[in-house]
Structures are given as C-alpha cells and as structure tokens.
C-alpha cells in the first residue's frame, strides 16, 4: 500500500470542500461542504496513524472519533439554525440574510 493515495485524495477532497463553502449559496449546502472538509481531515488523521510509527499508536483514530462526534454536534445545531432562518425569512440562501439590524 502506498499511503500517498489517501493523502492526495484527502487534499483534493479538502480543496473541493473549500470551493463548495465559497461557491454555494444555500446554507444547507455550505454545511455539507464543511462536512466534506471534516471528512478530508479525518482521512488524513487515519492515514497518518498507519503511516508513522508513533509513540502512542491509534491516537489518530481516537482523534478522528472526536472529530466525528463534534461534526455531529455541529450539524445538529447548524441545521436547527437553518430551520429557524427558514421560518423567519422563508429562504436559506446565505446572501439573503440581512447583516444589518432590521426592525422585526
């Protein structure tokens, strides 16, 4: 096995996630692009765990587990905020969110 394959794949996935975050206007799709970036980082962590001879093996896997848990929490809260935004403004496009204060 050449560990370079998953490393390069992870780099490409992260770049695509960056593109999605910058390009997408739907808030749900922006969150999905963030998930893609987190997945790329997880892939790096797991691959690094098998590549190097670490003092504490499997630390990368434990870190990946933490990242998965935090991603789950982030998605839960983020999607709840998106739902609330949809109820208030009837849109989920991030461009339509007014940044200045509006009189409700």
């Amino acid at each position, binding site marked *: 096995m050449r560990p370079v394959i998953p490393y390069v794949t992870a780099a490409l996935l992260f770049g695509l996630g*960056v*593109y999605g975050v*910058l390009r997408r206007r739907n808030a749900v799709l922006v969150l999905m692009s963030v998930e893609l970036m987190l997945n790329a980082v997880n892939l790096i962590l797991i691959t690094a765990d098998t590549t190097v001879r670490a003092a504490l093996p499997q630390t990368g896997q434990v870190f990946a587990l933490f990242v998965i848990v935090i991603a789950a929490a982030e998605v839960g809260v983020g999607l709840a905020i998106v739902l609330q935004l*949809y109820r208030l403004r009837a849109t989920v496009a991030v461009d339509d969110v007014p940044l200045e204060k509006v009189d409700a």
Partner: protein
Amino acid sequence: MSTGEAVTFWILVWPALVGAIGMVLARNAIHSALWLVLTMLSIGVFYVLQSAPFIGMAQIIVYTGAIMMLFLFVLMLVGRDASDSLIETLRGQRVAAVLLGIGFAAMVGTGVYRAMDNVTPAGLEQANAQGNVEGIARLLFTKYVFAFEVTSALLITAAVGAMVLAHKERRKGEKRGQPETMRARFYPGNYPGPKPGPGVYATSDSVATPGRLPDGTLTDRSISKILPVRELTSSESAPKGTEK
C-alpha cells in the same frame, strides 16, 4: 503490504472524488446530498483498509446513516425546490472560489505527494494485535478520558440547543379552532369544494393534462402547480385527440 489494498484504493479513489465533485457542482440540493453519501461511503472503506475498522463502521453509521439523513430531512423541510441559483451576487466570487479551492487542492496535493511518495507505512499490526476497538478504548478511557467527558457534555449541550432552536412556540390563542376554519373556508372568494382532477381521456391519463369543465374549456386548477415549472409545451399539456 499487499497489492489488494492498493487495487482497492485505486478503485475507490474515483467514487470518492466524483462524489465530492458532484456534491459541489450539482444544482439540486438532494442530488448534492446523495453525492456526498457516495463520498462518505468510499472514505469509510478507506478507513477499514487502513486497519481502522471501528472508525470505518462509525463513519458509515454516523455520517451516512445519521448526519446525511438529517441533512435530507432538513432539505425536505426547507423545500424540494431549494436548488442553488448560479447567479453571482458577489463580483469575482467564482474566480476566487476556483482559485482558492482548486489552488489549495493542487498545492496541498502536490506537496503531500512529494513528501509522502515512496514512504513505507509503519502499519498498525502491532497495535491492533489485541483488537482495534480495545486499543481505541484503552486510549479513550485513560489518556483522553477528560476530553471524552467534555465531548459528552458538548453533545448533550448541542442536542438541547438544537431542540430549543428548532422548537416552534405556539401560544394557546394562535391555534385556529373548527368554527374559524369553516368560516375561512366558506368565506367569499375562497372555493370550498375539492379541486377538479386532471383530465382522463381515452388516449391520455397524464396528470399534466388539464381537466375539461362542463362548458368545454380547460381548467388550470386541475393540474399541479409544479408542472408549469417543468415548462411543458402546449402540445404536451393539451388533451390528445381521440379520433385517429
């Protein structure tokens, strides 16, 4: 390491990348979510191949099973027509996104390739000798036990926060009772009866064909509002003649 692993990697790289590209480029939000599921499944197999079977299973169960289904639920709630418009509102956003995204991928990809090519992996056979789950649990409950507990606190806070945010407060007076509903239904200007069904003819029973009123005219009320969005031509939506 075996060549079987390398072959599996070479096969699965393409679904992972194609899924990511499809997720970024798909117009329809639902298609986007399904492309991302493909990517996440491929990454889960990557984990299993790299002697991390527990994380691979967690990836498949938690990511594709729970998180992506949550995304799909929210997409259904927000509306099926939540597709992205490609109109640029910020000038130069596309160029910046391409430059940053693709440039970042190319830069990190080539850097990692130059650094990691011809590196023989150390492998985890020794660490996994007593079992992968046992090894993770040993680390998780000894060295990282504090972080583990903090994570559980974070999860329960996020769950409560999501419930509070998504909860819709409805006061007692806001709920419309039966008399008010009936009054609104029979109020002048509102049609209280059921809508007419689409036209069913000898040669066509398509839902895109409007029904005919007693006076012979077609009624637009009998077809779904989504159909004009599909831009049917007038010949497609017109009832087809019966005589050949």
